[in-house]
């Protein structure tokens, strides 16, 4: 089940001088409950791919199936699909518009046709999940700090109770603590609600820490698809397409080439420290 891509192609501005084949024959299935890290150099097609996931862009050819049904079927409601596949764009705080945080978060649930009480209760629940303190709920979203605005905007999507949550660089521009705490919140929401998460990020450390599966895009095609360890062990191939590996992987691979440590690809700080200590003791 989940969300299945079958030979999806997308071309921007076909037939003009600025034509660009952004997705080339993409096939894969996003399984329920996965935490997918989507990585690729700027212009690799990540943003086009996620916009296909929630139906904002339509495939030129190929098909996308949600729980076995084509989202392009006439009988399939695209509007409902937007609610099932929630999308948090980069810098989502730029889409806040209401007079209070709570009203803004209610916008999505309200559009779903829920009663006002139901919408408000969902909004409050979402605001709790993103850990935005209650004192801000009745404040104008525009007076919040950058990190708080970000949380309010994410709550606006969580409140629609999506089955799949797509996030494009949710931590962009935040300081290290803000970064960690927002990613922790998302991870917790995933566990609590059992949802699927798609994280688009340039930060390999974050992807390595949270993702259960990593999909690498290059020039509109799938370049790699596997567990974080599988993908990040192919460090050299990642460099070839303008990407890198997590900081810890880079260090441990360098040490291994000097004969220190022999285990598989390392993506966590604890494992790496253990490996190096063990190897040094052994001599």
């Amino acid at each position: 089940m989940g969300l299945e891509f079958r030979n999806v192609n997308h071309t921007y501005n076909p037939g003009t001088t600025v034509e660009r084949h952004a997705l080339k024959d993409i096939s894969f299935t996003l399984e329920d409950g996965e935490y997918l890290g989507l990585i690729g150099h700027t212009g690799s097609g990540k943003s086009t791919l996620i916009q296909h996931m929630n139906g904002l862009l339509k495939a030129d050819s190929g098909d996308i199936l949600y729980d076995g049904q084509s989202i392009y079927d006439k009988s399939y409601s695209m509007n409902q699909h937007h609610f099932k596949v929630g999308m948090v764009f980069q810098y989502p705080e730029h889409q806040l518009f209401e007079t209070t945080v709570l009203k803004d978060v209610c916008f999505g649930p309200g559009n779903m046709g829920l009663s006002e009480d139901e919408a408000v209760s969902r909004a409050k629940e979402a605001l709790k999940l993103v850990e935005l303190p209650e004192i801000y709920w009745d404040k104008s979203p525009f007076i919040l700090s950058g990190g708080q605005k970000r949380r309010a905007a994410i709550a606006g999507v969580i409140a629609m109770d999506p089955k799949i949550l797509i996030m494009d660089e949710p931590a962009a521009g935040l300081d290290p603590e803000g970064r960690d705490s927002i990613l922790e919140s998302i991870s917790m929401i995933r566990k609590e609600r059992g949802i699927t998460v798609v994280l688009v990020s340039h930060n390999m450390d974050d992807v390595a820490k949270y993702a259960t599966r990593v999909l690498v895009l290059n020039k509109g095609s799938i370049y790699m698809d596997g567990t974080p360890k599988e993908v990040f062990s192919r460090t050299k191939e990642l460099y070839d397409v303008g990407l890198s590996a997590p900081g810890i992987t880079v260090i441990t691979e360098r040490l291994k080439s000097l004969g220190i440590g022999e285990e598989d690809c390392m993506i966590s700080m604890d494992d790496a420290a253990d490996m190096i200590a063990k190897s040094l003791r052994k001599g």
Partner: protein
Amino acid sequence: MSLVEVKDLFYEYRERDENGEVDIVTTALEGVSVNVEKGDFIAIIGSNGSGKSTFAKHLNAILKPTGGTVIVRSLDTSLEENTLEIRKTAGMVFQNPDNQIIGSIIEEDVAFGLENLGVPTDEMKKRVKESLKTVGMWEYASGSPNRLSGGQKQRVAIAGIVAMKPEVMILDESTAMLDPRGRKEVLDAVEELNKEEGMTVILITHYMDEAARAHKIFVLHEGQVKMSGTPEEVFKRHKELKEYKLKVPVAAELAVRLREKGIPVREGITNDDELVQEISRIRSEHGTGI
């Protein structure tokens, strides 16, 4: 006399609450003192809301101190008549690459500051070319900035400052909105300017790996300088950094973990190279005897 002398700088601003009634006085900077010598490469790091951007805006007289003094090349920023001269001396690159490019053609944008200074056209052409070459963007000179990546746009913005031949360049979170490749492009360009042209650089950032490339780091938290020193000295105090919502680079953190496990890794590791060298040194010196 230092090139930039910030002495006991205070900055307070008043905010009205939602009903426009009660004033709230917020102190963004509380007694900050920083000296920058010619040719230095300084990093100011701090979390969001630490006051680092407010500090940066004092260096070229966008903001004026409510207490203390900011002196740039012996010019006091609080005096109105010094403003233009200070801005010629201290060039500033901002955070959002889109919002600081004025021209629709790259070379014309780089020329914008020179036009304002009244530089003659021939001299201007020469300087635009030189500065675009310095940041590696000359081949795009006649193109539109809209088609560039974030890192390329920031390099154009840097060229626009370099062309004005300032003595110090301030980068106010100029890498915050860029991807890793863009950040690297910008940092490389800045480092080269510092090394090759002797440009004094003040880098405002919350990325530790960027700060590691500076000669000296100042850590700002809640409007105060909490730490200062070389990257080695600052990264040693990783626990304190955590209190200030910052994080040491991966290599520095791994070094700490190894020390905790009883591996005699020296203090003050700041980057991958140093850590890898240190570990192989330990192996060759100690063999199996740890």
